[in-house]
């Protein structure tokens, strides 16, 4: 398979689309946690109870469509190889928990990979929707429609006082986790982000790295999400998050302008050094890859680099993850082999770019 083909299959179609403020906001996500009223939560349910949830979901929803999301495909974890599950994790379509821990886990995934409904994760249902760029309201609107569609068939565990009942007390109420993935290189270079994170936390929002809880902000990509799910309406939760993200966008743009005014040459130097490393290195680890990709993407946004598509950051951050490399290599790779393979994949990807342009 050629790299071009591989990338086409590897990158979720929606991720290639442009969204509002996509120079800074890479994607918006809304996730709803729901449970069946009658069955114990997956944490303590026995094999048979989980199987019946799995069977029900497959019977009622496999190959069905809702809105523009046609033919949702029911994928059972038990039928996937380890590396295939890992690829779904790296594409953010399923959680590491579903891939590794869940017995009788499954996911309903739409063709364009914008919708993914995890079954038998920590909760019976974890429905999530992705949008390119900054589109939280639209994501919430469609998540509500998805929720209503599921509810036609499922008796949800719901309490008038506590709301949607979830396995973990941190999700009860709305069961809503809204998050945005942001590329904030200028705030990171100027170290302003370190001072902003505690302030954001005080507003009841959480800042994490790209692969969720406990992960480092690789490539200056930060994930901002709500913490509180109880006692506030979904719209209010989204509104709060949106307000903070708006501010962050403003600060990032301001920091970019300042950098351009005060140290344009240094910035240009930084961008082209990273560009050079990506184009020519023979061995590269994921951390350095992420850093260089962040610089190059910033270089594109600031107009230093032309002829390279903006989606290269989104694309390569995913493609250079271990499972993707192994899938492309079609074999298991040791960490050292991965670094070699990663470098060659990146070089190939940049060559592809030049072919398209000239």
């Amino acid at each position, binding site marked *: 398979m050629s790299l071009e083909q591989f990338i086409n299959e590897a990158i979720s179609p929606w991720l290639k689309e442009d969204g509002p403020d996509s120079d800074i906001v890479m994607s918006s996500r809304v996730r709803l946690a729901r*449970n069946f*009223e009658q*069955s*114990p*939560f997956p*944490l*303590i349910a026995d094999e048979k109870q989980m199987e019946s949830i799995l069977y029900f979901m497959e019977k009622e929803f496999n190959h069905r469509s809702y809105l523009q999301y046609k033919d949702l495909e029911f994928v059972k974890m038990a039928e996937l190889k380890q590396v295939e599950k890992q690829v779904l994790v790296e594409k953010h379509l399923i959680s*590491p*928990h579903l891939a*590794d821990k869940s017995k009788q886990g499954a996911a309903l995934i739409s063709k364009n990979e914008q919708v993914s409904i995890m079954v038998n994760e*920590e909760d019976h249902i974890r429905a999530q929707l992705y949008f390119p760029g900054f589109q939280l309201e639209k994501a919430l609107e469609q998540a*509500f429609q998805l*929720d*209503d569609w599921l*509810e*036609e068939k499922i*008796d*949800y*565990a*719901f*309490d*008038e*006082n*506590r*709301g*949607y*009942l*979830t*396995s*973990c*007390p*941190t999700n*009860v*109420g*709305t069961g*809503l986790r809204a998050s945005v993935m942001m590329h904030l290189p200028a705030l990171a270079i100027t170290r302003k982000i370190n001072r902003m994170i505690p302030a954001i936390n005080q507003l*009841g929002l959480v800042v994490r790295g790209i692969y969720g*809880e*406990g992960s480092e902000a690789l490539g200056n990509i930060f994930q901002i999400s709500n913490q*509180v*799910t*109880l*006692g*506030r*309406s*979904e719209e*209010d939760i989204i509104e709060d998050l949106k307000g903070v993200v708006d501010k962050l966008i403003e600060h990032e743009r301001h920091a970019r302008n300042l950098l351009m005014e005060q140290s344009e040459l240094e910035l240009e130097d930084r961008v082209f050094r990273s560009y050079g490393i990506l184009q020519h290195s023979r061995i590269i*680890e994921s951390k350095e890859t992420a850093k260089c990709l962040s610089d190059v993407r910033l270089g594109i946004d600031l107009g230093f680099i032309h002829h390279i598509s903006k989606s290269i950051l989104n694309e390569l951050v995913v493609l250079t993850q271990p499972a993707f490399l192994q899938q492309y290599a079609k074999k298991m790779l040791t*960490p*050292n082999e991965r670094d070699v393979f990663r470098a060659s994949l990146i070089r190939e990807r940049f060559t592809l770019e030049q072919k398209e342009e000239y």
Partner: protein
Amino acid sequence: MECQECKQNPATVHFAQVINGEKTEIHVCQQCAKEKGYVSQEEDAYSLHHLLSGLFNPKSSAMHHQSHKATDKELQCDKCGMTYQQFARIGKFGCATCYHTFSEHLNPLFRKVHSGNTAHEGKVPKRVGSDIFQRKKLRDLKVKLQQAIAEEAFEEAAEIRDEIRSLEKNLNHHEERDDS
């Protein structure tokens, strides 16, 4: 500092091991730490609920703990069998009924996790919660009615009153049907 095992990656896991009173410092990368079993896979999942489980027993005085033990012991969910102590340890509910079983203990916990909130505001399921939805609407309308009266917007108040009446009629109708 580089990883002392593979000597390639930067060391990101640092800790001291004490075996038979002898202390050794260990500096390794994440990869090697996992391979050598220094950190378990669980470590990745280290998350909020570990922190949370500390919130269940906010008063650490041993006396207090003792006096509570007797009552806590009796609390067990009759649907899924989870005891309050189990719940406090793992920090997760076993089933929907647990919310009722442990209900008296939940407000302090929810307040801590959800910035002081204990009750749901937001979406209500259409089918399962149609009555709930109506009742909530009724409550909201009554608040609006009071506001309208306070503002002396009587025309608006009359409209709201009519709406309330028809809603109440609907709800009563529902309940009668359920009884029969």
